[in-house]
Every structure is written in structure tokens, then in C-alpha cells.
């Protein structure tokens, strides 16, 4: 929300003037279509945004806290209920917290010392507008104004690196990646066998035989010379770069071989499959593109309000079912599969992941029912 001090606000929506910086796409210095060798010094950061306001108290459950039990007589978990679907406890060691039963995979990573939980992260007087609260966290600014916190990092550290050094997977670029000097590409998963297929200069699917003619014509027309500094020059350069960069990305990821089995066929849910496939796209990118080190994935739907637990069949009482359980299972299974894949590729220890959400619903269950 650009209101309080608009004069400090720069542009958003990834709309960076080409005159400022032309993203230099990764240009074949590394053999295309091959996985790259592990580099012990490489540092990769993967951010998962849980959109809609994840219920933190039912994610990391303070099961010994009497106030939790009092405020959540229906949707709250008792200690005896903190068991995953195999019956294994999801209580975190000898702490007074346990994971939601849907998060058995994350519990196993916790036990292996691979997952940490940071409690009570917030700011004074949290804003409960989804939009505004998202802006606040995305910008790390309580006015919600300005570029994203990751975008500001990108402006400082990714200038001059490949145009694929930061990539977002999702329907649109998240505000956290809004920057001034860098355009972070957003890739919308296509679904189907090749999730990258839409990230391309598309041509008539009915006339595949004409595709090369189309591409050749496009390239010839967008590599013509225009007066230096003219809009035409900027448009041609950005246009050609867009097509080439996308093509290079798609060539690169063909070198990827999965090191784990990602969920398919709507099992355990369509949400789990689509989220895991987004993480798989991240794996494809970081295993084949050397300086793709800042990745962003979104898992939405946490604004489920009265649908938090249960289904119609159980009169909305079964805490192991329902929207929240489905989403947390998607998160847990997706992250574990991704982790296993990275382990197989020998780069799991190079990767730090974090999740965040704009806020958690009220502790009082009637208020979020």
C-alpha cells in the first residue's frame, strides 16, 4: 500500500525499465542440458509462501498450553491426537510443541536435525487485511511500501548475474521479489508432462511444422538495428532476450533426472501434486543452472475459514481431514520429496528453505469459524 510515503516508493510488478538494466540471460558457458557438478560453496535459498494466513497454532501445536486447549475445544489437538497417519508421534522431542498430524514427513526431517521452528515472529499491531499484511511481510516494512525484501537483495547482489539467478514459480511474481534493477522472471507451471512448456515464445499448436519459420521470422525482426536509446531498440532487445532466455532455461532443465518420486495422480491430493511439482521445477532449475540460487514457490488456500478441519462426511469434526490438513500434508510431503531429490543430487546441504505466511488466525476458534 503505497500511501504513507509515496515519494519513497519505486515501481512494482517487476516492471523495470530496460534502460536501467537488461537481464543477462545465462548464456551457455556451461554445457546445456546437463546437470552441474556439486559445489560445496554454493548457497541456495528457497522461500515458500503460505498464502492466505496459515493457522500457526494448529501447525506447531502448543499442546501443553491450557489456554490453547481452552480456546480451541473443537479444532485444537490433544497430546494423544498428535500422531501421523502411521501412528508415530508428531510431538517435537521433549518440547511442549507438536506438529500437526498431517506433517509426518516434516517431523522425520525434524528428528534428523534438518528442520527448525521459530516461534512468535511478528510485529506490533499486526494488520489483518490479507493484502496489507502480505505487503508488510513482503517488503519487511510496516507500511507495506517499497520493493520486496528479496527484491532489494537482488538489486544489490544479483546485478550482472544471469537472468535466471532468481526465479519465481507461480501464477504471478510475488511482491517479495519486486525490485528496481533486476527483473525476476516468474514461471507459471503449465501442468502436464512439461511444466515449463508455457515459458516460451509460443506458436500455433496446430501448425508445429511452421514453428521454425515463426521463430526465425521473430528473431530476424527483433535483431534489426534501431536508433540507440530509442524505444524500438529497447523493445527489440528485451523481446529477443525474452525468447532466448526462456529457450535456454527449457534446454537446461532437460538435463535433469529426478532423484526422488514426486506425487502424482491427485495422491494424496491435487494440491499436494501441484505444490510438489512446483518444487520439482525448482529442483530442475537449481540442478542445471549454476547461479540459480534464489527460488520462490507459493502454496495458497490457507484462508479456508470455516473449512479448517473435517469434511461433510464427519460433520466437520475430523481434525486429520479438511483444508488445513490437506494443505499441511501438501507442504510436508512436497518438502520431504524435494529434500530427498536434493540429497540424491548431492546439494541438499547447500539449500536453506523457509516458509512464511501473512498472519495466523485468531487463537479463539469461534473467531475463525
Amino acid at each position: 500500500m503505497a500511501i504513507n510515503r509515496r515519494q519513497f516508493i519505486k515501481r512494482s510488478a517487476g516492471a523495470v525499465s530496460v534502460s536501467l538494466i537488461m537481464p543477462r540471460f545465462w548464456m551457455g558457458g556451461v554445457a546445456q542440458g546437463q546437470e552441474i557438478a556439486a559445489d560445496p560453496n554454493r548457497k541456495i535459498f528457497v522461500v515458500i509462501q503460505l498464502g492466505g494466513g496459515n493457522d500457526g497454532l494448529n501447525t506447531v501445536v502448543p499442546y501443553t498450553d491450557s489456554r490453547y486447549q481452552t480456546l480451541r475445544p473443537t479444532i485444537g489437538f490433544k497430546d494423544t491426537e498428535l500422531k501421523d497417519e502411521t501412528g508415530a508421534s508428531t510431538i517435537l522431542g521433549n518440547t511442549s510443541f507438536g506438529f500437526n498430524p498431517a506433517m509426518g514427513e516434516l517431523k522425520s526431517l525434524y528428528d534428523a536435525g534438518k528442520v527448525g521452528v521459530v516461534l512468535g515472529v511478528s510485529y506490533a499491531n499486526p494488520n489483518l487485511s490479507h493484502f496489507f499484511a502480505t505487503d508488510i511481510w513482503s517488503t519487511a516494512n510496516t507500511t507495506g511500501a517499497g520493493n520486496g525484501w528479496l527484491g532489494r537483495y537482488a538489486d544489490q547482489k544479483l546485478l550482472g548475474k544471469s537472468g535466471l539467478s532468481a526465479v519465481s514459480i507461480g501464477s504471478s511474481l510475488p511482491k517479495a521479489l519486486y525490485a528496481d534493477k533486476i527483473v525476476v522472471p516468474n514461471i507459471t507451471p503449465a501442468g502436464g508432462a512439461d511444466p515449463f512448456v508455457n515459458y516460451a515464445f509460443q506458436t500455433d499448436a496446430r501448425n508445429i511444422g511452421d514453428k521454425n519459420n515463426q521463430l526465425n521470422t521473430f528473431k530476424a525482426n527483433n535483431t534489426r538495428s534501431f536508433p540507440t536509446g530509442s524505444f524500438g531498440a529497447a523493445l527489440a532487445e528485451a523481446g529477443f532476450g525474452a525468447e532466448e532466455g526462456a529457450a535456454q532455461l527449457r534446454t537446461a532443465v532437460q538435463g535433469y533426472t529426478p532423484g526422488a518420486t514426486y506425487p502424482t495422480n491427485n495422491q494424496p491430493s491435487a494440491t499436494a501434486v501441484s505444490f510438489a511439482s512446483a518444487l520439482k521445477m525448482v529442483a530442475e532449475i537449481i540442478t542445471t543452472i549454476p547461479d540459480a540460487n534464489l527460488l520462490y514457490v507459493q502454496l495458497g488456500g490457507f484462508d479456508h475459514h470455516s473449512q479448517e478441519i473435517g469434511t461433510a462426511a464427519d460433520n466437520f469434526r475430523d481434525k486429520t481431514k479438511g483444508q488445513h490438513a490437506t494443505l499441511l500434508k501438501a507442504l510436508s510431503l512436497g518438502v520431504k520429496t524435494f529434500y530427498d531429490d536434493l540429497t540424491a543430487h548431492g546439494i541438499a546441504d547447500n539449500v536453506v528453505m523457509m516458509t512464511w505466511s501473512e498472519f495466523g488466525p485468531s487463537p479463539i476458534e469461534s473467531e475463525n469459524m
Partner: protein
Amino acid sequence: MASLSYDEGAHLLRRAGFGGAPEEIDDLSARGREGAVDFLINFNQIDNSAMETLLATSFDFSNFADNTKFNQNEIRRWWFTRMTATKRQFEEKLTLFWHNHFATSLSKVQDTFMYTQNVLLRNNGLGKFDDLLLKVSQDAAMLIWLDNITNVLGKPNENFGRELQELFTMGIKDVVTDEQNYTEQDVKEVARAFTGWNYRRQSPFVFQLNASQHDNGSKSIYTGTPWAQTGNLSGEDVITMISARPATARYLTWKLFNFFVYPVTTSSADKATIDKFAKVYLNNNHSIKELVRAIFTSDEFFSERAFFSLVKQPVELTVGAIRMLGGTYNQGTNARGSNTLSQLSRNMGQDLFAPPDVAGWDPNLAWVNTASMLERFNFANTYLTNRNTTNPGIFVTNDQLKSITKASSKKTVKKFLSRLGPLSVGDALGTLRTYLETGDNGQPVTYVNDDPTVDKKIRGLVHQIMCLPEFQLN
């Protein structure tokens, strides 16, 4: 009366509207420069009943509380339907200008008020600027957007008072004289004048002044300047005073030039131009219509510098691609509507009813990056390869495409370039012609404008033209 060539008529229609078919451009040209501008800006005299009928059958906004029929997507679909179907092109383009000028967003303001504001902008966009500014300022959308509803006696909120001066009227610095137009103290004093401005919390959600929250004390504004005023100034007083300042006339002229004519520089020649047209505003009782008329009939507007000097906004690109080619946006109905145009424009960076901030969308190169360019190219592909002419969506029929073709490849390319601009593209003309004469295996083929060729190569040709840097310009 000055004559109006075909190219000039096309330029006028692309800028004052979104572009059109040759018949529309011929009609404008026949009216001459002044006649064509009069026709466009006196849009209330143009019969628009076909669009009204279309809207009536495609939307149901009778109950704002029914969010299955009235919501963010529906108001976007509604505006795109207007822009593609209207006979009053300037009415919609001007509404887009004011939406960008008084940039307000769904990120904070609910759909009902965004819609109401849009109607307000459309109905008041050509009158006296003072009246438009007052209406926008007292409308719920703006009262919410810039927090004036929390601007109360003893606890002023300066957001509206600041943007009123910085973005809606004068700018921090005079665009002609470079003088500072107001101070931080003026922001504080102006904010006091608007304390207690609020809106009724039940239908009708009209403006109301909460008298107990209004600061009736004396305010001093613009102290030490020719516009200094002291007294118990009301919000209305401030709006009237600011609307009369030459700085406002110049700033509005500057915004109109940047939006409709060409990017204005800080050269003394450009400042003189802005000052010249600002006087039209000052000498005509702040009439937006007279200012716009003067700009559109000017030699500056028809100068070589102005032609194709702006990067098309995504909305201009998408709506123009439909209108110039004679394509179709089948918006569908509430039960089964097409959000294609709003989604694709959003992907390119322009989400209607949701500008990025109160300053609106940045123009020209701000639209140009690798991500947005890919979206532009793929919009063209989506449009040109959709053969489903019954479902809601965007498409152009083979019959329509065939009607534009010629017997020779060269004339066909030229005809489409004329249709989509007219564009002057240098060497690309030959490249496009070669495309028409190349088969699947790269072998030369003889061009004939038969049905299979239209469905394949003409669709490909138009896609390619829409990927030219020249087509991105307006």
C-alpha cells in the same frame, strides 16, 4: 479547417481511443482535423445503444451484495467489454486516463467503490476540473484509499492532503517554472481542511461531513506566495483554490501530453509548449474538454515527433489488437464469462482497478522487460490461434482475415501492416513476405490466399506483426 490524412486519422484514433478499422479511420479523415476531434470528444452524441444492450445482457450489477454476479473479475470484464465494444472510444480512453491519474486500487478499496468511482470518472471526465476533483475527493473510494476517513480533528492524517497536491493537481515542483509549489507545512494545513470528510456507512454510501471531527480552526496555506490564504478553510475551499493555480493547469497539461501526445522533456521548448496549453485551461474556466480539444487539434499532436512515440500500455495493446484487426472479444455472461483480456493485460503488468500505487502506472520503458515482452508475444499467439468462435474468449475469424488478404504476398503483408498501425517497418517487410513464402521444411512456396493458407500462414503473419517492436508503440 485543417485536413486529416489517413495516417493522421489512425494516429488520432489510436491515441484518443484504441484504434479501429479502415472505415472508422476514413470517416474521421473525412471530417478534417477539427471535425474529427469534435466528433470524438462530443461522444455523448454518438449512438452507443449496441454496447448498452450488450452490457445489459452480459452483466447483472443490480445487487452489489451478490458477489457471484458482482466482484473484482466482473468489473474488469465489464470495463474490457466497454473498451472493445464502445462506439465512444474517447470516453473509455479518458476514463483510463483518470483512473491512472486518481490511481486507486482494489488492494485496499472494495469492488463496489472501485466500480462507483469508475462510473464517476466516466460521467465527469470532461467537465470543469474543480468539479471532477471535488467529486473524486468526496467519493468513498478515495476517502478510503488515502485514509481521509481517519483524518480527524486533533489527529490529522496527511495522506490525502499530500497526494492531492503532489499527484492530483500541482506536483511538488512546477513543471514549467521549477518552483516549489507547496511546503510540508502546507500539507499539514491542507490536511486539516479535510478533517471529518467521510462517507455514509450504509447505502447510499454518499459523502458526509462529520462536523464534530472537522477542524474549524484557522488554516494558513501557501504563505508568502501569491496564493496565500488564511481563514477557516474548508476542503471545498482548498479544492477550488488549488484548481485555479497555474501550477495545476501546467501539471494537468503535462500529464495529458505524456499520456496522449509524446513524452515531455524538461527542455525550454517543451516547457513553453506546456505553458501554452495550460493557458487554455486557465482561460476557459478550467474546462477539461477545451484543454483536450486544443491538444488533439494541435500541430504538436500531429508532429512527426508524436507518431509512435509512446509504448503501448497493455490495455491499449490488447484492446487495440481486437479493434484494429476486426477481431472479437466475446465477453460471455456472468455464468460463463471470459476474463482473458483482463488476465493477459495483468500478466503484462496492467491490472485494471489495481494500479501499483497512488502514482498510477509508469509509462513507456516501465512496460518493457523480458517477462512482460514474453506475455505480449504470447497474448498475440493466444488471440491468433484460437479457432473457437463460439465460446467466450478472444478470436478473429478466417473470413475476417481473408477479407484483408491480397493476391500477392507483398500486398498482403502491406495490407496487414496498414491495418495494424499503419506501421512502417523497414526490412521487416521483406522478412514477413519471406515468411509467407516459406513452407514447413523451409522450402520456398508460392503464396496463394486460399483458406488453408489463411488459417495457417495469415494467422502466423499477424502473430509476427504483433511481435514487432513497432507494434508495441503507439
